[in-house]
């Protein structure tokens, strides 16, 4: 699957039986439809309604840019969380999945009240931590 932002093949990361698509370039994450709810449940999130709203709620076309769904190549729509301030994510119009830019996935997990001691929640945090970037060849 191609990263909607960098248009390169994404990595697949598997941790604690959960699998996510991860762009090694921009460190964004793609979750197939239903995966967010599953991850949220296993990370001890209390606000499952937030995930459901993101996966199936109304979206609107973005003002600029053409990020495309890695599954069907259709233009992704913008969806927002009902938190303050809202987190803006990209979702496939055919509900194939959600795209999280660098740092957005832990933010959404935190907004949904994910347990910070949970191993999966820590994994999501760790994925986008800055020290991971610091040792990569691009940063040197």
């Amino acid at each position, binding site marked *: 699957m191609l990263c909607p932002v960098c248009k390169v093949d994404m*990595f*697949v990361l*598997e941790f604690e039986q959960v699998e996510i698509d991860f762009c090694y370039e921009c460190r964004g994450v793609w979750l197939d439809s239903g995966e967010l709810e599953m991850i949220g449940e296993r990370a001890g999130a209390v606000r499952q309604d937030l995930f459901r709203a993101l996966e199936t709620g109304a979206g609107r076309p973005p003002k600029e840019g053409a990020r495309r769904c890695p599954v069907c190549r259709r233009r992704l729509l913008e969806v927002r969380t009902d938190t303050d301030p809202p987190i803006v994510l990209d979702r496939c119009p055919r509900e194939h999945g959600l795209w999280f830019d660098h740092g957005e996935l832990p933010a959404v997990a935190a907004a949904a009240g994910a347990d910070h001691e949970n191993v999966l929640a820590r994994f999501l945090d760790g994925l986008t931590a800055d020290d991971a970037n*610091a040792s990569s060849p691009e940063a040197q």
Partner: protein
Amino acid sequence: MWDQIQANRRRSIILVILMAAILAALGYGIGYVVDPVYAPIGVTAAVALWVLLWVIAAAGGSGLMLSSSGARKITHDDSPRLDNVVEEMSIAAGLPTKPTVYLIDSDAPNAFAVGKPDKAAVAVTTGLLMRLNRDELQGVVAHEIGHIANQDTRFMVLAGVMLGAIVVLADVLWRVAFVAGRGRRRSSSRGGGQAMAYFMLVAVAFAVLAPILARLLYCACSRKREYLADANAAVFTRYPAGLASALEKISGKTWKLQSANRVTAPMYIVNPLQGGRAAVGLFSTHPPTEKRVRVLRSMAGGAGYADYEAAYARTAGGGLIGRRALHDSAPVPMRQASADADQDPLARTREAVDILHRHAGFAFLNCACGLRIKVPSSFRQTQLFCPRCSRRHAVPEARPASGAASQKAAETPDASDAEPLVFQRKPGQWQSVRCACGRTIQVSPSFSAPHIRCRNCRRQIRIEQG
């Protein structure tokens, strides 16, 4: 068992004869409408068309069906669970050889079989592999193997091709009758116009009815065979509840299989195009799933053909296999659910997805922090950092035997006679190795040969057991 195939075969022969009669009548009609002296030529041409289509279907049918559905051949190492189940069931069915196993990348759970008993293939979708436990998977595979053992796979291709030929010829007759009818009107001063007009009416009516009739015959036969394969599955697995629960799971949600079409639909375990709807009539190739489940669930006492027949009579009414065929069928005791029935569904999903990723050329890396990294084949760097713990990993590469000095030689595009490549392998697990040309090669746990050849650049890579 043998009797049952015999009874089935008799019915099939009657069906083929009936369809052949329709086919010949259509040919005769077309010839007669053009000119009464051409009638025998019409019959010959119709039969020739059918034989031609049949030869094409028989020669390339299985391969065509598999390639049009995007099926990938898988080995024992890919999915030991599926491979073992296919092996067990083909032994239970007494097939001379184990069918080849294929996997289709689709979330819709479904399965089909093609080929003849000594050279068959069973294909299942990833959705099926993910959702069904061992007992259910065994039920579905046993049903498909039942189709192979009953020669349904071959027969349905034959009948399907005949149906196709009838549809085409009915269309031709319709057009020819129309054109000829207009031509005659102008020269109707000639005698015999009255008889010709009557014939024309009959021909037109026949052109409309023939495909309908043929499809009715075909579908009735197809539905009966589904029940028979269910009975086979009960006997082979000795556990009818497995298939019943699999059918419930498959039909529980509306799934539509992208790669199926109206021609290939009768081959699947449940109709892939109907998406679980209960719409079933005379033109369905599959019986309603609830009815099949009800028959399987109401089997009591044993898992033999007689028990299936009794359950069928109770729930659906009427007979299926026939008393004569059941006469010498041995009683089959029912078994208990297998111990690993409640295997972790997530582990099953991982298994199915891993197969797809391996076939897509992902290189698998296990980081010490517990993260499994699957690197896409287009990733060109030789090392990467774990996104979780920042550990450095080398992309598993086959290296030139004589060290870094010959690195340049390996990079030249056509290096079939260049430095031999070496790969240090850890035995007992799947391993990915990247050839110098960039292609990822998957080495299975049971691979034991000293060399492996890259399918892309034909380089030979020496495998050293590490």
